């Protein structure tokens, strides 16, 4: 068994268990809300009941967030076994990346955003290669102090599929834009692939991240 297969199996099993736990919390809090609603109908609202209702609703929202995170982990488990040439839905990878890395990014005061419901943008490389490149982009932002918001979205531009990275808000915006502009190639991708970061000159401060094959050569800056 390969290491990636081993990781994928362990991760998939953990996600299954996590979903079961979330399902119990969701149904238990849902039952609590049901019972409070019934009591409210028969005896009228009580302050303690209203408070409890709010707490249970917060728990339901937390379960929804946990379920979204579980979906992202499940995608990571299946992505780790995908072929190097994909296919990869860039829109979905952006969404998964934002969910998986939100916590760590927040510790550098970086907010990650992506638009839900965008159309898929298909490309011929592995999702893991793109995840790695996105991690490099965030590391680059962290290295100059973070404190910005990044919006990621899949797009097709001049027959190339890639990620539009929009830098907005935050006190470090200029520093981050300058760091990204001076780093056209990202390090650390697997041999045979390169990630290129192009300033989107017509719509600054945006960048277009593309992944392409190099024909077997490792590329660095």
């Amino acid at each position, binding site marked *: 068994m390969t290491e990636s297969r081993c990781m994928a199996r362990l991760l*998939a099993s953990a*996600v*299954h*268990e996590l*979903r*079961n736990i*979330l*399902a*119990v*919390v*969701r*149904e*238990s809090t*849902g*039952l609590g809300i*049901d*019972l409070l609603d*019934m009591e409210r109908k028969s005896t009228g609202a009580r302050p303690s009941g209203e408070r409890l209702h709010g707490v249970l609703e917060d728990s339901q929202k937390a*379960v929804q967030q*946990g*379920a979204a995170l*579980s*979906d992202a982990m*499940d*995608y990571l488990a*299946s992505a780790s076994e995908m072929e190097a040439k994909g296919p990869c839905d860039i829109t979905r990878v952006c969404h998964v990346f934002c969910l998986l890395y939100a916590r760590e990014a927040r510790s550098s005061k970086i907010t990650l955003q992506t638009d839900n419901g965008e159309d898929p943008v298909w490309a011929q490389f592995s999702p893991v290669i793109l995840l790695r490149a996105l991690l490099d982009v965030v590391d680059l932002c962290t290295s100059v102090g973070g404190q910005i918001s990044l919006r990621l979205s899949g797009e097709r531009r001049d027959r190339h599929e890639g990620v539009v990275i929009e830098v907005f808000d935050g006190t470090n915006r200029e520093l981050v834009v300058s760091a990204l502009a001076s780093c056209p190639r990202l390090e650390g991708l697997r041999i045979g692939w390169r990630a290129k970061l192009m300033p989107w000159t017509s719509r600054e401060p945006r960048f277009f991240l593309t992944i392409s094959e190099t024909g077997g050569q490792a590329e660095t800056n």
Partner: protein
Amino acid sequence: MGLRLLLADDERDFVDTLAERLRLRDYEVQVVYDGAEAIRAATSNKPDLVVLDLYMPGLAGDEAIKQLKMMYPAMPIILLTGHQAVDDNGTSPVSQAFACLTKPLAFKDFVAIVEAAVREGTTTGRGE
């Protein structure tokens, strides 16, 4: 009398609570905890709809649905799973389910799917 539902899931805390919420809404709910029990209960009680967990110890949901569909082809069945990706290429028993839902469920959505599945079962006729 409300619809008669059979729920089969080895996650007892989950399925017992789900059943209680459904009973509050006037469904008549029977709960079992494995696939073999589900076959026995469906055979003796002929519920309006069966909800099966896909991964149960012993007789799993995919095997249970195969057996139930052989005996009662028109009986609506909904599958539940903690796995996101279900291998449904149209040839597996999973494709015989009315829907395959991922936990945790949004209760309102679940009820809507239950109602839709029973409506379709009624339309297609359950002559077994």
